[in-house]
């Protein structure tokens, strides 16, 4: 604690602590240099493509950090929004691929389809702008509708989590059942081009990586702004004491709805970017298990901390592709164990490890807690 001898000024200065003013842009710059400069130079095409995939999961984690970390909404169904975004993008790319070879129907429809006309709900996706808009707007609209119904009825906690998970299951089951129009279990596969660029060309794959990395950085900056805004403070207040917020004259349902819808939009965008990076979107990538996977990374890294959630998502995705090759059967259990350990014993995730250790040593505490706002 610092003892200030000056008399308190009648007009108070803004309560932004000085070190934070330089620390945050500094960290952001470092992240940008690592993602846009170091990684493309240091990694092979193959590894960079894997990183691109992990960064898509990290984009989902940014939204999870907002909705779950700050808003207390355990969003166990982000696969729905990831899937909607992914399918919206993949539908357009499949149509563009087909058009490039002079076909009117995507390849799988020629195999399994019932007619030779495109289903009506596929048709608008031939327009690139419409498809791009839908990758974000469709997930947001679904989240708004669901959130409106759920939050107004004051459904929360585990019930909300189960509900959102059921939705993820429902969507993937529905997709599997619609083989003629969605590709069924296979999903939409074998995507060749991305807005005129050949995805088989490594140069274009690198470009996709840069797009993904840039989107991640932008969304982190946007989320950071939300975190420090008055809305961010209100969101924490709603998380910690919804009833009290109501007595202050706010409707907590609206506050939660905003976080949920924004997180859904981010997941949708992540799904859309996942498609050119990986070349496929399928029900197996958006069902219950991947939906849980989306929150595990954030939980392990630290859901309330933006950087923690992002790094956690990248690390868990990396561990998954490394370990699931070596121990395919054990990975699921390990994933579950990680989740339980993180939520049960380190709710702040690895990002809070420093603070937790500091608390264990009460000696240093008085000096450490002075200037944290």
């Amino acid at each position, binding site marked *: 604690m610092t003892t200030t001898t000056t008399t308190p000024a009648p007009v108070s200065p803004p309560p932004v602590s000085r070190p934070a003013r330089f620390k945050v842009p500094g960290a952001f710059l470092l992240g940008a240099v690592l993602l846009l400069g170091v990684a493309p130079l240091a990694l092979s095409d193959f590894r960079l493509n894997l990183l691109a995939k992990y960064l898509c999961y990290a984009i989902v984690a940014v939204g999870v950090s907002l909705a779950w970390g700050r808003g207390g909404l355990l969003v166990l169904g982000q696969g729905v929004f990831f899937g909607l975004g992914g399918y919206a993008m993949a539908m357009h790319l499949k149509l563009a691929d087909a058009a490039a070879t002079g076909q009117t129907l995507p390849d799988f429809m020629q195999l399994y389809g019932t007619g030779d006309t495109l289903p009506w709900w596929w048709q608008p996706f031939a327009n690139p702008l419409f498809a791009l808009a839908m990758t974000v707007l469709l997930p947001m609209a679904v989240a708004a509708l669901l959130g409106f119904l759920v939050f107004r009825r004051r459904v929360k906690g585990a019930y909300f989590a189960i509900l959102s998970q059921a939705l993820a299951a429902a969507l993937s089951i529905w997709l599997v059942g619609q083989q003629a129009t969605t590709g069924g279990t296979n999903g939409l596969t074998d995507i060749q081009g991305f807005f005129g660029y050949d995805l088989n060309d490594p140069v274009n794959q690198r470009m996709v990586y840069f797009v993904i990395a840039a989107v991640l950085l932008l969304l982190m900056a946007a989320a950071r702004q939300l975190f420090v805004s008055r809305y961010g403070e209100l969101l924490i207040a709603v998380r910690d*004491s919804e009833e009290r917020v109501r007595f202050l004259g706010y409707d907590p349902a609206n506050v939660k709805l905003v976080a949920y819808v924004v997180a859904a939009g981010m997941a949708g965008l992540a799904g859309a970017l996942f498609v050119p990076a990986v070349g496929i979107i399928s029900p197996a990538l958006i069902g219950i298990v991947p939906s849980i996977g989306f929150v595990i990374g954030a939980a392990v890294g630290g859901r309330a901390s933006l950087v923690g959630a992002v790094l956690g998502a990248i690390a868990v995705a990396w561990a998954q592709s490394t370990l699931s090759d070596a121990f395919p059967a054990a990975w699921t259990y390990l994933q579950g164990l990680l989740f339980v350990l993180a939520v049960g014993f380190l709710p702040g995730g690895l990002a809070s490890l420093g603070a937790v250790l500091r608390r264990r040593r009460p000696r240093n505490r008085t000096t450490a807690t002075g200037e944290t706002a």
Partner: protein
Amino acid sequence: MSGEGLTVRDLRVTFDGFKAVDGVDLDIRPGDLRFLIGPNGAGKTTLVDAVTGLVKATGSVRFGDEELLGRPVHRIARLGIGRTFQTATVFEELTVLQNLDIAAGAGRGPLTMLRRRKSVPEAVTKALETTGLTDLRDRPAGVLAHGQKQWLEIGMLLVQDVKLLLLDEPVAGMSHDEREATGALLQRVSEDHTVVVIEHDMDFMRSFARSVTVLHAGQVLSEGTVAEVQADAKVQEVYLGRASEPEPIAASLPVPEEA
């Protein structure tokens, strides 16, 4: 003191057949510092719950010209009615300043909400001074002492710009000094607000009440100044248990207006 009074007519709240509030009439004028007392289960908190929209009730509760019954909680709050709870509920992870800032902001537009707080709103500065929490403004509310949390809650009601404060046992668990400080705070607040206090502490009530309503078994048993209520034989019977000796403190109380 301009503004609205609270008018309660034939208020009834029933839980599974149990009549928690059973036909209460209550008039609280603007600028009053009213104490609601009564034994456990008399319906004091339920009455406040009904007024603030937390439980369903029949009858009528008017604040000025506005009927409150049937409105959602946050709408009632926006009419200028604020309350606290028996256990202080502040946002523990947020600082004192952030707590107050949120309380001040129910009418903010989306653009303001999405920006960072650049300066401290005047109402917040004033509330920090009124509650004596200026030096603690950047501390997380969770580390405040019990009494300070209650004061923060009262401060939150002040910046919320409520006209009517409903406080549920604000001095429960407080030390003697904290009680005195709270009482002084309530008197300051009641200069330009209407205050209703639910209280068990009789000494506290005698020292600070301007008017008193005694509830018993969901009904109004007695109403008046402290002296009048204490002189009421029915009150002595059910609440004080026996005929009590004359209270010197009560006799010397300033009584600003007839209730």
